[in-house]
């Protein structure tokens, strides 16, 4: 349906690059293909996690779960801390809040895109600000989670030479095999860096909107392109949430 409605560019015939068969501008198309390549990068990280995890022993669910170097930890036992509620076991609650924040910021982003289609600058500004706020909130949550993971819980865990080790770094890990902590740092870190660059791009879009750049340009397509990136970041988090925290 849509393929027939593509107009030819002025001064160029259809066989001279005059029409866009995909019905999308160059920039939008390139954003799509960039995101596809980024999807491969994230898949490689998550699938490698799957490989290493399935090459380790799993907890057999007999008796109480304790952190051990001998088997892969159950993620909900690792991530059960919530700020201001020290000492309570609240598995996955905090990461659930983070998921909610990111989904909501995806909604505000798509509302900004919708407002852009209508050339409604005030609405674009409003929704972009909400989106930036969501991104910053998510990053703050992640900073807290990293800090908690690195410093560890009160229990600690015995390491080879007989001392007790709290928390995790790239070589030692209280919660289980060191590879678990490595993947945590790499996967959530790589995703967090995407969120960070997304917030920067969102701010740039917000700034340009306020300065009236898109009003002068006559369209708000930049909001749409950066919106695609922002939704992708949300999409990756959905997979990280499932494969790192739930499964």
């Amino acid at each position, binding site marked *: 349906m*849509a*393929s027939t409605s593509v107009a030819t560019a002025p001064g160029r015939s259809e066989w001279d690059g005059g029409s866009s*068969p*995909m*019905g*999308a501008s160059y920039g939008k*198309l390139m954003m*799509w293909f960039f995101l*596809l390549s980024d*999807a*491969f990068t994230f*898949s*490689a990280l998550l*699938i*490698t996690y*799957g*490989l*290493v995890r*399935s*090459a*380790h*022993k799993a907890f057999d*669910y007999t008796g109480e779960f304790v952190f051990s170097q001998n088997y892969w930890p159950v993620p*909900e036992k690792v991530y059960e801390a919530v700020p201001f509620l020290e000492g309570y076991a609240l*598995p*996955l609650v905090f990461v*659930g809040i983070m*998921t*909610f924040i990111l*989904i*909501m910021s*995806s*909604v505000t*982003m*798509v*509302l900004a895109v*919708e*407002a852009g289609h*209508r*050339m*409604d*600058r005030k*609405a674009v500004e409003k929704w972009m600000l909400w989106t930036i706020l969501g991104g910053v909130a998510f990053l703050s949550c992640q900073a807290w989670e990293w800090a908690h993971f690195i410093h560890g819980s009160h229990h600690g865990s015995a390491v080879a030479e007989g001392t007790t080790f709290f928390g995790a770094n790239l070589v030692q890990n209280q919660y289980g095999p060191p590879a678990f902590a490595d993947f945590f740092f790499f996967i959530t870190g790589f995703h967090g860096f995407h969120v960070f660059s997304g917030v920067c791009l969102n701010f740039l879009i917000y700034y340009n909107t306020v300065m*009236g750049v898109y*009003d*002068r*340009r*006559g369209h708000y397509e930049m909001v749409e392109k950066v*919106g*695609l990136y922002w*939704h*992708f970041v*949300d*999409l990756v988090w*959905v*997979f990280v*949430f*499932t494969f790192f925290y*739930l*499964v």
Partner: protein
Amino acid sequence: MAHSEETVHINVLPPDKEKIKKLWMTALWMLIITIVEFIIAFTMDHGQFKVWLFIGLTIVKAAFIVGEFMHLRYEVKVLFWSILIPLVFIVWMLVAFVYEGVAIGNARF
């Protein structure tokens, strides 16, 4: 567009109520799915079925994000398939690597 580039005389259209409502409904569905995932995580016994259930629900959420938020469902078919078909490689990578991982685990323990 009726106005020229330099004169800032913008024709602001009213909000598309129908479209906005649909977007919020999509968000509501994703929220419901996430809550269901939580319920499953704490009530169901651990096992193969639970893992597949999580994967299924994740794919539903991903379809919502890509289809509705990223608008891919409404794009030209060529674009739609250009994005979706290459994902086959990810599926194959997943199968191959997890199979390999299990084999390594069997060899080690």
